């Protein structure tokens, strides 16, 4: 059995799984195998680009209802973002916080900001310069998923990183 070949195939398979994140659809926010990106090609995305971030790193983390604590999945994704940002020091990002629709407009603006801040503070604590990170909150105004079920709502409660 060629374990090296199996390992390579496994990494490719995981890359395929990670690239599903580009649609912003169901994402676990921290597939632990995503580190395979460093071992092989960027899947066609320009290194250090928005596409690269989404396809190979993971551009978003998710939160529980009315909460802004980072789960272990969220921290894993943010750890990969830290590594990626350290590899491309010229990149600046925007961290946008969002909520689901089950709240009022103004409070949700503040909650979205709190989520964006939590994600930014984690990156900064891991060594990313705060000058590279801009934050914004959209409250419940820009939902990632537009359904009305728990699946959609869980997608809406997020902090999304994008290349500036």
């Amino acid at each position, binding site marked *: 059995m060629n374990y090296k070949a199996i390992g390579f195939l496994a990494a490719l398979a995981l890359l395929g799984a990670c690239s599903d994140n580009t649609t912003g659809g169901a994402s676990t926010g921290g597939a632990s195998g995503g580190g395979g990106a460093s071992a092989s090609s960027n899947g066609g995305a320009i290194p250090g680009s928005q596409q690269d971030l989404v396809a190979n790193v993971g551009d978003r983390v998710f939160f529980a209802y009315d909460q802004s604590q980072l789960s272990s999945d969220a921290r894993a994704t943010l750890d990969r973002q830290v590594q990626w940002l350290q590899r491309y020091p010229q990149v600046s990002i925007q961290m946008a916080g969002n909520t689901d629709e089950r*709240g009022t407009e*103004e409070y949700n603006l*503040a909650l979205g*900001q709190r989520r964006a801040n939590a994600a930014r503070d984690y990156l900064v604590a891991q060594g990313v310069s705060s000058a590279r990170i801009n934050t914004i909150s959209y409250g419940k*105004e820009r939902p*990632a998923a537009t*359904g*009305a079920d728990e699946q959609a709502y869980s997608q809406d409660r997020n902090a999304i990183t994008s290349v500036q």
Partner: protein
Amino acid sequence: MTDTLTMLGRSAAALGRRSALIGAGIAAVPLLGTQRALAQGADTAITVDRARTAPIPIAIPALAGTALGAQMAEVISNDLARSGLFRPIGNAAQIGANDAGDAPNFQNWKAVGAQTLVTGKVEGGGSNVRVEFRLWDVLPGQQIQGTAYTTTSTNWRRIAHIIADVIYERLLGEKGYFDTRIVYVSNTGPREKRIKRLAIMDQDSENNRFLTDGSWLVLTPRFHPTRDQIVYMSYYNNRPRVWTFDLGSARQTVLGDFDGMTFAPRYAPDGNSIIMSVSRGSGSDIITVGVAGGGRRTLTSSGSIDTSPCYSPDGSQIVFNSDRGGDQQLYVMGAGGGSARRISYGKGRYATPVWSPRGDLIAFTRLGSGGFAIGVMRPDGSGERILSESFDVEGPTFCPNGRVLMFYRAGQGGGGSRLVSIDITGFNERVVPTSTDASAPAWSPLLA
């Protein structure tokens, strides 16, 4: 003689604010007639509470004179009918319009069940229109009120709303709310790429116009208490901040210079400052700023989310939304800041508090496992009543006399949003027509 003098004095007082409205180009003078004060005895004392269960039958035939007469009668009639407190007599036109100076045929009006009657006439056009109106008590056959307005023809809707307010006030004993506007957010496009524009219209949904073009997300507009100005939130250049919009010049000005997001703005009752939230740390603080952007003052810095502040009508207290206790609840503090006491203790979380212009109630949005609800409570938190429940109802705003609330209702999953009005006792819930989906309404003060 004494009665007439008393009547003139009372009607002059009632009209005092109107006749001072020369700025909008409307002048008002009382019309003499065999005036008679409504007796204050129990049998003729009509109040808003009584009118809810027994709407006042009122006949409003087309005003005589130009074509505006019929249009004005319709606006007046619709205003009064929509309040739920009046019952315009149908087919009033069949009995015929009356010249304002004639004594109406009270027998005919009595026969169709009218208790009160409006007559009038419209003369002139263009820059010089004169509108006479008289309000009659049908049973004794006496004039209650008579006024002549002169203005430009473009103001005809305002005159109709002012007349409706005068009728409301003379018959119910408190000021009306028809000569007002609504500012709101118009929503178009799919939920994931929603286009939001500030819009403004008369409270009867007429004269709608858009104030912004949708290039940038806009939220939560509110009226200045005396000036033609709106405060709102805009994402202009991807910097979410509070802005002011001058309705006369259409000039938009960012409020102050803040590093963090500013949001949830309202004017203080004296119109000299704006109270709002600014993002700080992991939460938001409530601050006040002068209307020109200077004179910043921090009122809360609890480290939690403090937002949605609203002054009491006398400006002495502030009700606001805070999660300092663990989840979203309502708190009241003095206008200078300092210690705040929680007032919401019902089942669920509470948000979007607004203080009634009457000072007697605070309206709110309640959030629970079953969905949202609009309700009212006394400023000490007692007497909580729920008025309307739906997946997403939120953002109540009071009309100037505190008798009617407007809020918005959105479908789940970002379905269409509509403005809704409801009497504060929970009756007469109605959709307020808008040309697009609409949210975040705010009711203006009386324009006069």
